[in-house]
């Protein structure tokens, strides 16, 4: 038989490994491009976080209908994610914005604790997007939830000090957001390091644009980030987080236009393809919305990684 020239790259560096939750889940650790066993000794597949909210305002009805009523209680919703096979819970506290819901700081802390107690899965907490509220509630959670290591989502270039300080004080991780640009992604990690956040407490979110809405940009930015990390750029050697739920906002994914087939199946593929592109370009943690998409992607990721 023909002898094939060796094509394995010897990168020399790898992405950091970060334990989350109660320490039994670890993200990151890639030493090569995704799923290539001939150059990447890590058999770890990307983690999958299921999205849970404290309020259903603004949450797609089609998605809500896929959780058999259990979406009404955040802890119960999180349990359902665990049953589906999720490795983490992504809690989006939209209801802390008074124009949306009535969740108070005490409620938010209680919800996080309940999810932790019932699922024992690692948790990523995300605010409502209103700065003053997030600055009040997320630090409360950081200081009152101590026996599980949270990921605090998310800090940005203009606003990272308060949440990073709170995360550090509580022994939690932070998620650094940047907008589709390898240099900004790196800049965020430098800012956080300079501020005192340890590199193994940082996750990065370079903004995954969904299929049909700029996915190509994200796919290439992610690939460049991962290649640079493997080739030795220390400031990019942190696990990459990609949100795929935005796929639900793409008109083609859910429209009722005749000839496009069943929207529930279509949106599942829309999100699954977004997630596959994310993990093929380097994502170590996928934050997903739809249960069937998450299930498909987990099975494929397990197979690709060559073990679970």
């Amino acid at each position, binding site marked *: 038989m*023909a002898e094939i020239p060796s094509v394995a790259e010897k990168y020399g560096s790898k992405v950091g490994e970060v334990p989350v939750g109660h320490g039994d889940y670890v993200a990151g650790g890639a030493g090569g491009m995704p799923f290539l066993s001939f150059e990447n000794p890590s058999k770890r597949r990307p983690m999958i976080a299921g999205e849970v909210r404290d309020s259903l305002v603004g949450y797609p009805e089609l998605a809500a209908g896929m959780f058999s009523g259990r979406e009404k209680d955040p802890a119960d919703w999180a349990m359902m994610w665990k049953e589906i096979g999720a490795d983490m819970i992504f809690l989006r506290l939209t209801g802390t914005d008074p124009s949306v819901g009535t969740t108070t700081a005490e409620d938010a802390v209680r919800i996080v604790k309940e999810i932790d107690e019932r699922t024992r899965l690692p948790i990523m907490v995300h605010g409502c997007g209103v700065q003053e509220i997030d600055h009040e509630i997320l630090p409360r959670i950081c200081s009152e939830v101590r026996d599980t290591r949270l990921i605090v989502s998310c800090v940005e270039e203009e606003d990272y000090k308060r949440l990073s300080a709170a995360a550090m004080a509580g022994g939690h991780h932070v998620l650094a957001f940047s907008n589709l640009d390898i240099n900004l992604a790196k800049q965020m990690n430098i800012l956080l390091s300079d501020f005192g956040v340890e590199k193994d407490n940082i996750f990065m979110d370079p903004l995954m644009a969904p299929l049909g*809405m700029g996915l190509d940009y994200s796919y290439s930015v992610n690939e460049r980030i991962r290649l640079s990390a493997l080739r030795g750029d220390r400031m990019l050697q942190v696990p990459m987080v990609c949100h795929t739920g935005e796929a639900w906002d793409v008109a083609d994914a859910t429209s009722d236009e005749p000839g496009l087939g069943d929207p529930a199946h279509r949106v599942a593929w829309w999100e699954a393809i977004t997630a596959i592109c994310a993990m093929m370009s380097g994502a170590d943690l996928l934050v997903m919305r739809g249960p069937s998409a998450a299930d498909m992607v987990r099975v494929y990721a397990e197979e690709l990684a060559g073990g679970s």
Partner: protein
Amino acid sequence: MATAIEYFKLLPKTNCKDCGQPTCLAFAMLLANQKAKLEDCPHVSGEAVEAMKESSAPPVNTVKVGTGENAVAMGGENVLYRHERRFENPIAYAVSVSDSWDAPRIAEAVAKAKSLAFDRVGMVFRLDLVSVSNDSGESDEFLAAVDAVLADWDLPIMFEINDVGVAEAALSRHAALKPLVYAGETADVEAFAKLATKHGCPLGIRAKGVEAAADAAEIAAKAGCKDLVLDLGASNLKECLEWQTIARRAAINRKFRPLGHPLMNRVGCGEYAVATAVLSTLKYGSLVVFDGLEPYEALPLFTLRQNIYTDPQVPIQVKQDLYPIGDPGPHSPIMFTTNFSLTYFTVRADIEKSKIPVWLQIVNTEGLSVLTAYSAGKFEPERVAAAFEESGVLDKSDGPVVVPGLVARMSGKLSEEIGRDVVVGTNESKDIPKHLREITS
């Protein structure tokens, strides 16, 4: 492509100027920039020219299936990552019909294949090929099935035939259509290669794993076959990803000819088949043949192909035009934004969410987003007014004209230009529905 130094090594280094250049090195630089041909130097040896042609040929062959403007080109790739350079030829998707089906069933399958076509902002996403599979093992039935397909399908076709005799009969009749003949896994690689070459048609073969595929490719090459498509015989996603990556890296990074061919996958239907197609679209596939494909699978898959094969250097643009959303009337709001497709899609999706009909005017900003275009002077009130003029939107509706919040500064000037009041909209696209409800209630 070879570098100037690689060319320089082949030249006699006498600086005789017969090529019209002052030195051999100057000539080599022209060669590297493809501004001259090696033959322009009369003193370079014939073997050197041949050797250079060989090594400067693209690392992956280009194979064409079908004829005319609908022909599908596969392969021809030069890079491993799309950020380096635009991928050349988009992956093709095919759906297979069986020659053991009766004519009505074939017609139904072809009609379904044709229905997998979607008009998307100035582009049509569609299925590329119909494949006819020789399940009967008979020539007559195969030819009848091909006729049944051709009755209603005028895009390229391919044949899945495992028997050289049947392939001979099929190509004798249909070689002019330049179908791809996919022999699958066969002991007759040489015979198939000779047959395809004789008829000037491309050949697809399957061999399990990169080593076996390289061997088969060598046999086909020796038999004169240049237009080869390789199926590495992956039986799962992991093999598909790893083998296709090894083959493509060997071809591009190591100039390993036997694997320098477009790659294909023969899948079934359903979830796993689509997942394989997704991986193959991302990592080096040129053709996926399905047993069947549903519209809810096809639209996301075709969208993926469009995304992956865009030019990474050029932001994707939509055409400057008036896009009615919902069913806008004479009092509906008029909105406008840039022709950067990401902006367009986002704004469009958010308008749709509001369920309020809107006239959306797209202004050509050369693919820049709102703020970038504004600071680059490509999203000025004059330009917006000219676009309004061109589409006649101001005559179609007396509704409010909404200026994107990020460029509120242009309000005064725009209002002057168009002789109408304007309102300032939201900074963020996601707040559009709320704002629309406010201004229309």
